[in-house]
C-alpha cells in the first residue's frame, strides 16, 4: 500500500537526488578548475607554471586531457570570445572542442584561434603533472600503466606525485608498482643513504631485467655501491634460475607431446615386437578428425566450439583405432615373427595414408582453432605458461595414468601383460593371442589418435604431421625400452627436458643432433633401453 502511494512521487525524487549527487560536489570542485583554465592564456610563462601546478592539484577528471592538449600544442584560445578549446584533427581540417564542457564547436578557420604557448620548462612540468594525474586515475589499469611508465622514466620529479598516489592506493599490485617506480626515482636524488638502501631492496625484490637496468648505473656509487652490486648479482642469479625453470617447462611440454606420440608405439612394440611405421600417420588422422569436427561445428553449431576438442577426442580414438585394427587384421597378422617385414609393410601403409589425406584434404596446412579455454597465457614469476601447453601436459598425464590403470587393473590388461612376457605360455593358458594382438594394436592406434587431437592445438595440421614426429617417438621408445609404460614416460620427459636445456647452449638443430648422437651411444650401453624387459622372453 505504501509503495503504491509512493509511486507517483518516485521519478521526481530520483531526479532530485541525481541532481544533488551530480551537481553539488561537481560545482564545489570545478569552480577552481574552470577559473584556472580560463586563466591559462594570460600572464608570463612563470604565471602559467603556477596555473598548471594548481590545475594538477585540483584532481579534476578533465585535468589530464587539458594538460595533455597543452603539452601537444592543441590547446587554443578563441580570439572572438576567449573560450578555451582543444583542437582535434578531422577530415576537413581542425575541429574545436570546448575544453571545459566537452561540447563540439565544429570546424575552425585557421587564424581564428590562438595557441597557448609553452616552453621547455613548462613541457617538462606538464609531462610530470600528466604522469601524476594518471597515477590518481580511477581506472586501475591506467594507474598500473602510469606507474610502469614512471618506473621506466625514473625521473626524480615524480617522487612527490608517487608519494601522494601511494598514500591513496589500495590495490596491492599497483602499490608495488608505485613503490618500485619511487625506488628508481629515489636512486637519482640526494636522499639519505638509508632511503636509498631501502630502494635498492625494493628493486632487488622485483628482480627482473628492468630492475637490473635501473640498478646498473649505481653499481659504482660510493655510498650504496656494495648493496647495488650484491642486488645485481642476486637478480642475475634469480634470472638464471627462472630461465632454467622456463626451459624445464618447455621440456615438460615437449616431453608431454613426445609421450603422447610414443606411448601407443611402445605398447604395440612391447606386446608384439612390431614397429608400426604408420604410427605417425595415425596421429595425423587424429589431428584431421579434430579439423573435421571443428569444420562441422563451425557450420552447424558455432556455440559448441569450446567443446570441439572433447567431441573430437572419442571420434579420433574411433577413427585411428579402427584404422589400426584394420592394419593389424589385414597386414601385420600375416607377418607375425618377421619384425623387419612388418616395419616395411607399415611404412607402405603410412605412405598410403599420407597420400590419401593429401588427396582428400589438400596438401596445405589446415586451420584448427583453439577453444577459448586453451588460448592465451599466464605468468608465474618471470615464466610464461601458455594454456594450450599446460592442458596438453595435463591431458598427456591423464592418458598415461588411465592407460596404466587399464594395464594393471583390467582383465584385458592382464592378458596383454601375459602376452608381452611370454607369448607361447599365454596361449597355453587359453588367452586368444590373436585377439589380444588386434586389440592392443587398436589401443595403440587409438592413443595415437588422441595424440593427434592434442597436437592439432600446437602444431600445423598437414599431411606431413606424422613424419615430423616419427623419428622422435622411435627415439623415445628405444631410449625408454619397449613393453614398459614407465619407460616411455621416462624416455619422453627425459629427452624432452634434456633437449630444451641443451637448446640455449647449442641452438635447436644442433641440440637435436646431439640428442640423436646421445641416444645412438646410449643404445650401446643399454641395447634394450632404460627399462628393459628381463628374462627369457626378452630374448625372443
Amino acid at each position, binding site marked *: 500500500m505504501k509503495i503504491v502511494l509512493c509511486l507517483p512521487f518516485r521519478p521526481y525524487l530520483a531526479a532530485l537526488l541525481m541532481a544533488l549527487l551530480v551537481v553539488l560536489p561537481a560545482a564545489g570542485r570545478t569552480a577552481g578548475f574552470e577559473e584556472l583554465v580560463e586563466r591559462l592564456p594570460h600572464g608570463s610563462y612563470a604565471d602559467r607554471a603556477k596555473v598548471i601546478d594548481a590545475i594538477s592539484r585540483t584532481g579534476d577528471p578533465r585535468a589530464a586531457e587539458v594538460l595533455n592538449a597543452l603539452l601537444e600544442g592543441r590547446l587554443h584560445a578563441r580570439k572572438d570570445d576567449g573560450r578555451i578549446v582543444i583542437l582535434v584533427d578531422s577530415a576537413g581540417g581542425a575541429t574545436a572542442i570546448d575544453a571545459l564542457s566537452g561540447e563540439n564547436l565544429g570546424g575552425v578557420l585557421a587564424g581564428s584561434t590562438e595557441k597557448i604557448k609553452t616552453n621547455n620548462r613548462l613541457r617538462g612540468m606538464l609531462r610530470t603533472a600528466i604522469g601524476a594525474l594518471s597515477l590518481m586515475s580511477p581506472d586501475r589499469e591506467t594507474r598500473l600503466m602510469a606507474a610502469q611508465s614512471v618506473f621506466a622514466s625514473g625521473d626524480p620529479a615524480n617522487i612527490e606525485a608517487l608519494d601522494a598516489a601511494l598514500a591513496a592506493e589500495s590495490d596491492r599490485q599497483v602499490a608495488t608498482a608505485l613503490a618500485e617506480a619511487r625506488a628508481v626515482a629515489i636512486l637519482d636524488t640526494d636522499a639519505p643513504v638509508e632511503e636509498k638502501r631501502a630502494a635498492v631492496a625494493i628493486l632487488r625484490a622485483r628482480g627482473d631485467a628492468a630492475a637490473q637496468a635501473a640498478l646498473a648505473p649505481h653499481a659504482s656509487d660510493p655510498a650504496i655501491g656494495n648493496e647495488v652490486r650484491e642486488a645485481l648479482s642476486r637478480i642475475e642469479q634469480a634470472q638464471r634460475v627462472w630461465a632454467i625453470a622456463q626451459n624445464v617447462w618447455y621440456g615438460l611440454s615437449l616431453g608431454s607431446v613426445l609421450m603422447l606420440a610414443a606411448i601407443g608405439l611402445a605398447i604395440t*612394440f612391447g606386446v608384439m*615386437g612390431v*614397429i608400426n611405421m604408420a604410427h605417425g600417420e595415425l596421429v595425423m588422422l587424429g589431428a584431421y578428425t579434430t579439423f573435421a569436427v571443428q569444420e562441422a561445428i563451425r557450420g552447424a553449431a558455432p556455440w559448441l566450439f569450446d567443446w570441439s576438442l572433447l567431441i573430437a577426442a572419442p571420434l579420433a580414438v574411433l577413427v585411428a583405432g579402427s584404422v589400426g585394427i584394420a592394419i593389424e587384421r589385414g*597386414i601385420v597378422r*600375416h*607377418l607375425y615373427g618377421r*619384425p*623387419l*617385414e*612388418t*616395419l*616395411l*609393410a607399415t*611404412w*607402405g*601403409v*603410412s*605412405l*598410403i595414408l*599420407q*597420400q*590419401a589425406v*593429401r*588427396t582428400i584434404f589438400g596438401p596445405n596446412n589446415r586451420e584448427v582453432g583453439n577453444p577459448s579455454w586453451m588460448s592465451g597465457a599466464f605468468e608465474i614469476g618471470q615464466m610464461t605458461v601458455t594454456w594450450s601447453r599446460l592442458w596438453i601436459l595435463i591431458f598427456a598425464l591423464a592418458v598415461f595414468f588411465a592407460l596404466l590403470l587399464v594395464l594393471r587393473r583390467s582383465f584385458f590388461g592382464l592378458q596383454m601383460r601375459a602376452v608381452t612376457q611370454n607369448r607361447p605360455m599365454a596361449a597355453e593358458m587359453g588367452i586368444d593371442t590373436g585377439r589380444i594382438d588386434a586389440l592392443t594394436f587398436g589401443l595403440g592406434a587409438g592413443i595415437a589418435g588422441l595424440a593427434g587431437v592434442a597436437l592439432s592445438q600446437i602444431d600445423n595440421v598437414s599431411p606431413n604431421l606424422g*613424419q615430423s614426429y616419427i*623419428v622422435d617417438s*622411435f*627415439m623415445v621408445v*628405444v631410449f625408454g625400452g619397449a613393453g614398459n609404460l614407465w619407460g616411455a614416460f621416462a624416455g619422453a620427459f627425459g629427452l624432452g627436458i634434456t633437449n630444451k636445456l641443451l637448446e640455449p647452449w647449442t641452438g635447436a*638443430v*644442433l641440440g*637435436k*643432433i646431439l640428442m*640423436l*648422437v646421445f*641416444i*645412438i*651411444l646410449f*643404445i*650401446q*650401453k643399454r*641395447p*634394450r633401453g632404460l627399462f628393459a624387459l628381463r628374462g627369457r622372453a626378452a630374448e625372443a
Partner: protein
Amino acid sequence: MARLIDRRMGVFLAGLFILTVALPMASSAAAGQLVPAYLVSLVGKYLCYALLAVALDLVWGFCGILSLGHGAFFALGGYAMGMYLMRQIGPRGVYGDPVLPDFMVFLNWQELPWFWLGFDRFWFAALMVMAAPGLLAFVFGWFAFRSRVSGVYLSIITQAMTYALMLAFFRNEMGFGGNNGLTDFKDILGLDLTAASTRTGLFVASAVALAGGLMIARWITASRLGRVLVAIRDAEERTRFLGYRVEHYKLFVFTVSAAMAGVAGALYVPQVGIINPGEFSPANSIEIVIWVALGGRGTLIGAALGAFLVTLAKTVLTGWLPELWLFALGGLFIMVTLWLPGGVLGAIETGLTRLRAFASMRTKEIET
C-alpha cells in the same frame, strides 16, 4: 672366375654390356638420335641406384642387417664428389673467387675450412668417396655390433643416424652449402659436364661400377666368409656359439657396403648436377629397401633389377600421375612383404622349380 659368374649373373652382365654399348650409340648424332640424349643420364642415374641397391642387399640379404640409413652413405659419397666438382669450378663462380665456392663467399668466409683441403685433386676426392662413408660405417658399426644391437633396434638407430646427418647438413655452419647443397658444377677432370661425350663417359663408368660392385659382392658372398654371413643372418646366436666373432663379420660387410654406396653416390652427383641434404632424408633410405625387397633380397642381381624397376616406375608415375605415386609405392611395400617374400626373382625361381618338378614328374609318368 667361372665360379663367380653363374648363368643368371652371366645373363645380367651381358644385358648390362649390351645396354652400355647400345644406348650411347643410339643417342649419338651419328645414329640420328634414335633415343633422346637425356636418356643416357637418366639410365646412368638408374645404374647408380642399382649399385646402391646391391650394396644394401649385401648387408640385408646376406647378413640380415636392415639398414634404414644407407642413403646417408650414398649422400656422403655424393658430397665428396660434389666437393671436388665445386673446387673444379675455380674462378668461374658467380663471385669469381679463385678458391672459395660461391656459398662460402656468400657467408663471408675468409678461407677454406680444413675439411675442404685436398678436394681439388681427383685422386683424393676418389679416395674420400669411399673413405668417408666407410669410416662412418666402421665407427657406427663398431659401436652397434659390439654391444649386440640388432633387429629393429639397429634399423631404428641407422634411421636416427641419417636423420641426424640430414639436420646437420642443413646447417650453413657445417660448410657444405646448407639446404642448397652443392651445385652449378662445370666440369670433371677438365671435361665439360654438359658435353654428350662426358655424359656418355659417366654412364659407362656407372655401368662398370655396377658390374664391379656385383662382382665384389658376389666374390664376398660366394666365399667362406659369405657362408658365415648367411649363418649369422639365419641364426646369429648359434654362429656365435660355434666360435665365430659375429661382430667382426658384420662390421666388415657393413663397411664394404657403405663404401660401395659411397661410390654410387659419387657417380650419381655429376649426372644429376646437384647434391643436397634431402638425400639424407629417412624416407629415401627406406625406399632403397623396397628396391631390394621387390627384386629379391639375397640375390644381388634382383636388387639391381628392383632398383631399376621401381625408379623407372617413379619417373613415369611422378611425371604422369603424381598423385598416384605414393599410393603405388605404399602398395608395393605391402604387396611385396605379404605376397612376394622372395621378390620378383624369388618368385620366378620358385615358378621355374615347380615347372621343372612338374616336367620331370611327367617324364617319369611317361617312362613308366
